[in-house]
């Protein structure tokens, strides 16, 4: 089992992702450059965070047009596992693999802090084992998840909301929502459940040294993926 960690000009969480996967989760992982034409030999894709192409036009917009993302779309449509974190979520949303869009935080600030998350669906390998409130960091300026009322209903009906921002007791409240996301949404999955996008960074929380290990409860799913 080998994970492709995609790299674009401006990626900056690629090393965190690769090292977390290799050394904390214990799976094989390799970088794949954005203009590579193929994902042959890989069993899962991790689209890491960063500021690809300087966030020109919109966050993730330019990266979403790259050859490796075209391949990732095919890969995902075959039902194979793909996760996008932070800018990786923005790229997957821009690529049309996930519904909705990410926009400027409601308070205009770049926010870097720990948040509490509640898993809202069992329909993905990433969320299936998250059965308690977890604490992992966010670090973004454009993480306000936007979707219209029909889209939100469809997400709810299909159990596609992966994570919501909650308080430490697991209660949904406005003050727990760091960026103004619709319905406190921190992450969503596609209809099939094999693609997850989330703004918080599980790869930054897989070692006590980093301040927490709750990201492990999400990323350990990688060790269950069969080659």
């Amino acid at each position, binding site marked *: 089992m080998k994970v492709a960690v995609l790299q674009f000009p401006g990626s900056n969480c690629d090393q965190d992702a690769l090292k977390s996967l290799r050394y904390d989760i214990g799976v094989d992982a390799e970088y794949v450059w954005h203009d590579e034409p193929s994902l042959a030999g890989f069993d899962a894709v991790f689209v890491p965070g960063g500021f690809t192409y300087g966030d020109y036009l919109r966050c993730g917009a330019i990266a979403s047009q790259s050859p490796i993302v075209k391949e990732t779309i095919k890969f995902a449509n075959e039902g194979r596992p793909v996760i996008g974190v932070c800018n990786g979520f923005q790229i997957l949303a821009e690529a049309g693999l996930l519904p909705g869009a990410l*926009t400027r935080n409601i308070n205009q600030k770049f926010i870097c802090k720990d948040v509490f998350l509640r898993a809202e669906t069992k329909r993905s390998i990433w969320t299936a084992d998250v059965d308690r409130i977890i604490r992992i960091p966010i670090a973004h300026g454009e993480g306000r998840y936007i979707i219209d009322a029909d889209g939100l209903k469809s997400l709810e009906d299909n159990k596609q909301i992966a994570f919501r921002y909650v308080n430490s007791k697991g209660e949904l409240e406005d003050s727990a929502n760091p960026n103004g996301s619709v319905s406190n949404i921190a992450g969503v999955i596609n209809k099939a459940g094999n693609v997850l996008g989330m703004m918080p960074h599980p790869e930054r929380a897989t070692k006590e040294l980093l301040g927490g290990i709750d990201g492990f409860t999400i990323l350990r799913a990688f060790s269950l993926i069969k080659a």
Partner: protein
Amino acid sequence: MPTVRVSVTLKPSLLDSAGRTVAGSLKHLGYEEVQDARIGKLIQLEVDTVDEGRIREMCQKLLANPVIEDFSFEVIG
């Protein structure tokens, strides 16, 4: 060479927090008549030929995100 001016704006239903900040600043400067401001993007394309269908396609595929933005364009010369 023809020039196409594409404007991209956040959908009216969405809060434009940057625009709101700008409106606040204008008010602060004494322009009390300003009730709101919306910030968009203006993208000027130099093209060999004008094909409105293709320009619309460019807007839909890349220049605007239909989930959150509206677009319009005009050929200006």
